[in-house]
């Protein structure tokens, strides 16, 4: 896969990640409410479960891709001057990558 998400490929990724995140969020919210995760031990044990951790990691990866395509479109639509547009895209891309690594680290630590 190329790093440049453009045209049809970007359009498709946007929708595939959207479907995964929609299903995940409904399931996750349901599980959190049903399982009474209102204390630290139960919450950590839930997140640290191999399957939940994997699904969560996938969720954050999908979120990164989805947010990148979406915010990039917004910036390209409204920000016209080249250097401002370029700098904003760099900041957004960097922030998203950093957030993903941070989230993956949190999830990994919870499995230990």
């Amino acid at each position, binding site marked *: 896969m190329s790093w440049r998400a453009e045209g049809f490929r970007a359009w498709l990724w946007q929708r595939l990640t959207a479907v995964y995140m929609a299903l995940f969020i409904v399931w996750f919210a349901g599980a959190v409410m049903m399982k009474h995760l209102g204390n630290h031990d139960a919450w950590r044990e839930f997140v640290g479960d191999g399957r939940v951790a994997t699904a969560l990691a996938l969720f954050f990866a999908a979120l990164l891709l989805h947010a990148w395509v979406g915010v990039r479109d917004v910036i390209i639509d409204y920000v016209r001057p080249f250097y401002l547009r370029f700098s904003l895209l760099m900041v957004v891309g960097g922030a998203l990558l950093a957030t993903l690594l*941070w989230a993956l680290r949190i999830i990994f630590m919870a499995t230990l």
Partner: protein
Amino acid sequence: MESKNPGSKKSRPVYLDLRRIRLPVTGLVSILHRISGVLLFASLPFVVYLFDLSLRSQQGFVQAAALLHHGFVKLWAFLLLWALLHHLVAGIRYLLIDFDIGVALPVARKSARVSIVGALVLAVLLGAILL
């Protein structure tokens, strides 16, 4: 930017001037989809911070929970809940439209209204339970 011939290639706007846009309800869903998406994106670091805090330790979990019930944060959390629900509901509407479901204008207008009101109602209901 004043154009005498709006259809011609030369006078077509190359970017979107927010002050010149008059919105029908389908356009309102669209711009709210964008606003909610940007809001969710901008809040992501803070959400991940709360996630981190809640898993780190027993005190962290209590701190994170207390933070969510604290004045301005609670308001922000409600706004974020609405943003998520609107983005989700309007997103499902767009997916259906991608599959040629609800493309006809009267249906699209109705589903636009249902999306806006539905997301608000869901946000208030879930917010009352969760926050």
